[in-house]
């Protein structure tokens, strides 16, 4: 069997297709998802998680350090149990504060980790005790109106 011009073109086609796939994988998508092998799990309880979803990012100082892997409802204490998967490279003190934040006014919700000053760090399956719930816009408006009404009453 001889090599033909046809083979050359097919080779060009296959290489171009592979290059396109590589472009999609590396430039368009993110391959660096937090893998189970080199990450650890933390659990945090919130009174209200607002619109937080599974796969939402966990950020510290604005940098993505992990992802939300599970959201459950605790029927006994009526709280939300959120499981986070954090990259092994990052260790957080025991008194880290987990707060649910919103990027921008209408953006997606994420969990922000504020490191405390404790010398001991959180290990796999540990619980984050300090949490701050999501800000629910309706409650905020309600409080504002309530405050306004009180102002009017005292005058």
């Amino acid at each position, binding site marked *: *069997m001889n090599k033909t011009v*046809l*083979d050359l*073109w*097919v080779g*060009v*086609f*296959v290489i*171009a*297709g*592979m290059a*396109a*796939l590589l*472009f*999609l*994988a590396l*430039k*368009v*998508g*993110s*391959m660096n*998802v937090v893998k189970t092998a080199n990450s650890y799990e933390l659990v945090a309880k919130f009174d209200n998680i607002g619109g937080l*979803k*599974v*796969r939402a*990012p966990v950020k510290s100082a604005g940098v*993505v350090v992990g992802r939300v892997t599970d959201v459950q409802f605790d029927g006994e204490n009526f709280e939300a149990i959120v499981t986070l998967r954090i990259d092994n490279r990052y260790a957080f003190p025991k008194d880290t504060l987990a707060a649910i934040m919103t990027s*921008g006014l*209408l953006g997606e919700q994420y969990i922000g980790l504020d490191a405390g000053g404790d010398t001991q760090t959180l290990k796999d399956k540990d619980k984050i005790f300090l949490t701050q719930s999501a800000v629910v816009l309706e409650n905020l408006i309600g409080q504002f109106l309530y405050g306004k009404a009180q102002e009017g009453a005292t005058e």
Partner: protein
Amino acid sequence: MLKAAIAGVGRRTIHGIWRIGFATRFFLLVLLYSGTAFRRIGLTIREIYFTGVLSLIIILVSGLFVGMVLGLQGYETLQTYGSEEALGVLVALSLVRELGPVVAALLFASRAGSAITAEIGLMKATEQLSAMEMMAVNPIARVVAPRFWAGVISMPLLAALFSAMGILGGYLVGVVLIGVDEGSFWSQMQSAVEFEQDILNGVIKSVVFGIAITAIALFEGYDAPPTAEGVSGATTRTVVTSSLAVLALDFVLTAFMFRGIS
């Protein structure tokens, strides 16, 4: 009159079921004789040239234009919400998840599928297939199987090229022409598009479409009545059936893949 109409319905139903059975047997035979497509790889490479390489131009140009239109339209809509930076996410996700595999498959069906049907239908009409059988050459192994595998190999590559060109088109319109910030265009895209969830599922879709289109095109050609009319009818049926199959399969696959995401 009424009796004839009812008889016609019955005849068509039986004919349809007959065809489905024949198509299934044909598909299984193609898979059974696929060994030849890989043992004599030259045959398959030749077919990749005809189905894949010759479809490149239409795929690349359409991809570029689809991406450019997405860039323009997406910008117009996103601008209303003051989130132009999300343009990269919009273009990339819609291309990688849906438009890439589906539009590439539709173009592939009309560009390559119709050609396959016409070629095999004509081979049958001019009794080349019977001649092969006379020479103890199995036409399914020698003619059909290489074309099948060529289509299955070409389709995902074409879809990936379509998506890549589309994203490039969106980049050209969004960043170069309109002036969306380049950094946030790419970085938001990268943080939103996931490899397994989005890109891999898109590739799986295009493989399924490749199988469906080539199988339909080959069967229609093989089953075509050996007349000029028969071949032309079969070619039309290939494009119609495979386009509908692609859209229906796309719905089913999407329902399975993206259920319960975000």
